[in-house]
């Protein structure tokens, strides 16, 4: 099996308050069939052998669905490969002797916890501000009481595919959370069940998004390019539209 020797430039930071810095590590004899995170595992194993602290990073399912892994690889969240998370990236995409820059997802609204680990609880607070349909358990009508046209159901699903990883924020030069917020709102706003709370949802989520200190969207669509679920920036347009309508209705009624 071919082996790679790589140079890693990794962001190390002790905790939220300390200053971080880029450190250089050699990643020797990395099998091309290893995943990117397994490459870090190998480097960490050697760091531990040498008595150093391993590189801390977030990861969990390692199959591209939990949204936990959060590395910016050579300046691009989840790497320049389209439609994948970091954990789905494999070393065969790199060549021998390459230098790889590994940094955390950067945004003030995602404070660094340690090394490559960031705190994305701002996303949870945005959901708590309206990203739901209020239905008490047990109070639901029969599932077939609501018919949903397939195009609406599909559009809702396209938005619902968001795994909340935050790559959209990390890729945006303004650290805007518009793709995330729009996907979450669009999922529910496309469905008949979501109509009753639509205005409240849109106003609440956008207000919370602003309070969390995310930047403003400048329509560059880097978010869409790095989204592991390839969610379209058209959802942002829908959020803008829904927000305008909600604000207008809110002003007069």
């Amino acid at each position, binding site marked *: 099996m071919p082996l790679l020797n790589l140079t890693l430039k990794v962001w190390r930071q002790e905790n939220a308050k300390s200053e971080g810095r880029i450190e250089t590590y050699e990643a020797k004899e990395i099998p091309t069939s290893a*995943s990117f995170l397994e490459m870090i595992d190998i480097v960490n194993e050697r760091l531990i052998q040498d008595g150093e602290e391993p590189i801390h990073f977030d990861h969990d399912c390692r199959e591209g669905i939990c949204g936990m892994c959060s590395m910016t690889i050579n300046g691009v969240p989840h790497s320049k490969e389209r439609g994948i998370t970091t954990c789905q990236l494999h070393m065969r995409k790199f060549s021998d002797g390459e230098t790889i820059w590994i940094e955390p997802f950067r945004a003030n609204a995602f404070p660094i916890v340690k090394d490559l680990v960031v705190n994305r609880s701002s996303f949870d607070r945005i959901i708590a501000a309206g990203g739901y349909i209020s239905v008490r358990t047990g109070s639901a009508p029969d599932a077939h009481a609501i018919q949903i046209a397939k195009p609406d159901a599909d559009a809702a*699903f396209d938005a619902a595919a968001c795994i909340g990883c935050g790559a959209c924020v990390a890729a945006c030069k303004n650290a805007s959370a518009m793709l995330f917020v729009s996907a979450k709102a669009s999922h529910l706003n496309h469905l008949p069940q979501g109509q009753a709370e639509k205005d409240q949802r849109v106003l609440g989520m956008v207000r919370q998004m602003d309070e969390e200190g995310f930047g403003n969207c400048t329509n560059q669509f880097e978010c869409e390019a790095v989204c592991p679920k390839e969610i379209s920036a058209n959802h942002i347009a829908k959020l803008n539209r829904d927000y305008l309508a909600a604000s207008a209705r809110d002003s007069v009624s």
Partner: protein
Amino acid sequence: MSLDSKVPKGPLAEKWSSHKMNSKLINPANKRKFKIIVVGSGLAGGSAAATLSELGYKVECFCYQDSPRRAHSIAAQGGINAAKNYQNDGDSVHRLFYDTIKGGDFRSREANVHRLAEVSTEIIDQCVAQGVPFAREYGGLLDNRSFGGAQVKRTFYARGQTGQQLLIGCYQALEKEVSKGGVTMHTRTEMLDLVVVDGHAKGIVVRNLSTGEITTHAADAVILATGGYGNVFYLSTNAMGCNVMASFRAHRRGAFMANPCYTQIHPTCIPVSGDYQSKLTLMSESLRNDGRIWVPKSAEDAKAIRGGKKKASDIPEDERDYYLERKYPSFGNLCPRDIASRAAKECCDEGRGVATTGLGVFLDFEDAIKRDGEDAIRARYGNLFQMYEKISGDNPYKQPMQIYPAVHYTMGGLWVDYNLMSNLPGLHVLGEANFSDHGANRLGASALMQGLADGYFVIPSTIAVYLANQKPGAVTTDHPEFKRVENDVKDRLKSLLEVKGTKSVDSFHRELGLLIWDKCGMARDKEGLEYALKRIPEIRNEFWTNVRIPGSANGLNSELEKAGRVADFIDFAEVLCHDALAREESCGGHFRMEHQFTEADAEVQDGTTQTGEAKRHDDLFQYVAAWEHTEPGKAPILHKEELIFEEVKPSIRSYK
């Protein structure tokens, strides 16, 4: 100790409604005085936390992930069963109940399973109302697909991400309650111990994984919804963080561990590619509808393939062994999971395995592509083929896929009664963490159903059975037991850090996993299990004298987190092997080599079953094995809950 399952009296179909009718209620004004701790925020924990808060209870919810939306329920692909009978194909609550009991190889509790089938329909209603985007037909109504072990179409699905969509619905309900103040969410917080006061579970000790701070939390009841223990095998389809710590800590504090030997192995996973491998990826079982599974007939050919000297296409048709079609002509490649898994293992044990490690078999689409065309196959499996190519780098349209079985669900767990309360009063266990509904084997699309049934519909009613006899807020963290357990936890972390050995935590985990996979995996025997029971204490000794954990307990330290989990996996592995050793029969996910049908059996001769099938011994083992912890390193004590079948008659599981 006698194990009282507290199954209500009366006809099976009326047990749940009469139980709800006869149970004590707590009036709404009093509910807010009760505080409930929920550990875990997956489908079971998240739905329980949200629903209990809606009812008025004060809920504290904990998860180790950075957001409750990331729990491993998210990874379920296939779907969720419900006895809706929207297809008008003869489904009913009773049929779902029967399929589940039979699928579990007659090792589950009838009353629990019937209740599960009853509430399954409400789950779908609830999820649709929450906005879960299930697949729909052009008419706007919900679509269903069929799944293993059932002859009706009762599975609701959301593309390949049913788990994620259900969890998002549940998470949104949870965040709604967070915003209303009913739930306090503690993310990146791991439960390290259970606090038992006067025999009742009254609180937990947790570590904030970001800051390292240890805190104690008291409540009137504790709910564990912390998932399964598949990662005891190191390599599994579980997420990296999945662990047995919360369950095992509870076990050490007195909760019984039931049927740990029931572990499910999934036949179609991507094989291991090297020592560095951290995780296995599941490929949907649906691939077996069109793919043909084979290995070369000769070990030499297999060796040449492993060495890269030959390719699959170099092996002529008559040198290939389509072993499932050969052994099981009627079912062929679609035989049940456990049989397909064991057959793959046998071929690899004979040296006929492919993949670089020799642990892999071919899943070949050549014939299907020839028959239906590449476009048809792409339409059916396009995204799966793409996923395979991403991971393996091979193009499955040109070269056959390589697959191998992997652990992916554990049916065993903490023992619970009909109210989902363990033998420790106050401690309730939901979802994969309990043992209750799947018996010895879980059917596809039933895990999501059970998690949500427990959380949305069962525990909100049954927790009152316990709480009604409790004085709210009677125990606080001022009770000396909290300080004592907190000190235990701190001492344990300190001793882990003080070992300062030479080997990493992962290397121990890998060693343990290989041992358990080898001796207590797809096929088990007495000799292997006894060997494992001899080796585990050695691994434990070496772990506690030679593990190296850099850094400190202050702040984020992922090595320390892993160390705590692996230490418990080592201890848990002993319970697992004891259970597998004691259960001298084969059933569902537990296959003892000594107990399989052979040519000598009458059932084989009359065609009821075939050789190599699991052989149960209902006369001896028709019970739940619940293990009581004694001392570290000492064998646990077995308690039995006899399984009584009033409605169905256990028979030989056959899918002919």
